[in-house]
């Protein structure tokens, strides 16, 4: 078991609506998001993103001050933002093990 450390996030640009996880978060660990706090349902690795605020379905997701894609469903503040709720506006994302041409 890795030692539980204090949650740490990086906001790369002031306009961003996602934060980057800078220290691993354990399942069940509580971490602050804005004025509220969230309990992690599963471990979150460094480099993954969480929503800095609620992001409605169809809204743009902003990182580096730039649009990195659109929310495919409503995302709650503090929720992990990844392939299950964010899609590229340009190209599909391919995951290991998926057959050629199938997109997520």
């Amino acid at each position: 078991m890795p030692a539980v450390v204090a949650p740490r996030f990086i906001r790369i640009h002031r306009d961003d609506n996602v934060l980057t996880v800078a220290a691993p978060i354990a399942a069940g660990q509580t971490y602050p998001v804005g004025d509220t706090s969230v309990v992690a349902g599963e471990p979150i690795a460094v480099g993954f993103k969480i929503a800095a605020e609620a992001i409605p379905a169809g809204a743009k997701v902003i990182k580096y001050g730039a649009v990195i894609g659109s929310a495919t469903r409503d995302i709650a503040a503090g929720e992990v933002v990844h392939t299950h709720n964010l899609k590229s506006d340009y190209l599909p994302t391919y995951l290991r093990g998926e057959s050629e041409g199938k997109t997520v």
Partner: protein
Amino acid sequence: MNDVTINGYLRSDGRKGIRNIVVVAYLVECAHHVAREIVYPLRSKGVHLLGFPGCYPNSYAHRMLRQLCTHPNVGAVLLVSLGCEGFNRAGLLEEIRATGRPADLLIIQQSGGTRRTIESGAGWVASALNQIQTTLRAPMEVDELIVGTICGGSDATSGITANPAVGRAFDRLVAEGARCIFEETGELIGCEQIMAARAARPELGRSLTACVDKAAHYYTAMGHGSFAPGNAEGGLTTQEEKSMGAYSKSGNSRISGILTPGDVPPKGGLYLLDVVPDTFAADGSVSPRWGFPNISDIQEIGELIACGAHLTLFTTGRGSVVGSAISPVIKICANPETFRRLSEDMDVNAGRILEGETTIDEVGDEIHRLIMRVAAGAPTASEELGHQEFSLVYKSFAPLGPECLPSS
């Protein structure tokens, strides 16, 4: 303040190198084994192997080999041909000899086969190594350096730590008059408007956007982009997200021009290298005739070197271990955990930014100091470990428009 003295190797065209390598180049895959056997016993003595596998001639490949064999880091060249391949070997030999470098050509079919060609080649290389001992040296200033950057094995830390830190080093180098090159147009999809706004001239901005559009069409036609499965496992979700992270290593300088592989930037500044082939169909659409624009990071490093890069800054999150033939590769590790696992393969630990131990600015300065030390002769981690990777496959490029380069 740069207090390191670089003692360059002076070449006949006035350019200076930071290494003095003997290149052995095979001109078709069928000559690869013989060339490799010539190099192998001398691989730690500054003898590097490169070549082109294809049997049919290709002007891009010819240009790449010409630019690599006459790169300022190269002191002498031995070409190895099977004999029946289509490569214009006499033309390439003539182009290399015109620079005054010792150069020779062995044709296996006319040299008695494998063993005798290896023996002849080994003898020639031993003699060339002696001959280049007397290469003239001359002090080299930072404004004579060409530095490339590339990322490979990216994860979400790449765009947070190593890439912005390289951006800081690039900003400083450009301010000092160096020529800096970034690339991976396929990984800039989604940030083309931000990039166009940084163009030194409005018409260049339109060409920058067109470059990325071409990459988007090409990758779409291929079925998918440079987004590898490992990227998503590392926390990156979309091409645009990866693009912004990749783009951050170009820094904040104005963009002076666009290059295709083999174009040497004419003056100090920041340049975008377009690595995606120009393969236009009759209706003007892009058709991916040559397959993936680059089969791996290795070919892109080779293309940066063909543009004259004396060294390459390679940022990695998941932990690439590669180096390159001809020009040193400085590896900047973005992820502190990867650094701990692969520290012997890394030159800079930018992951300390993530752990709150240092800042992007400080790592940028560290990279700048390391560039100067490596240019002065200090070996990089990949050089110490004997990495001399090289890869080259078919492509084609249209000539650059006049708007792409600054007037020199």
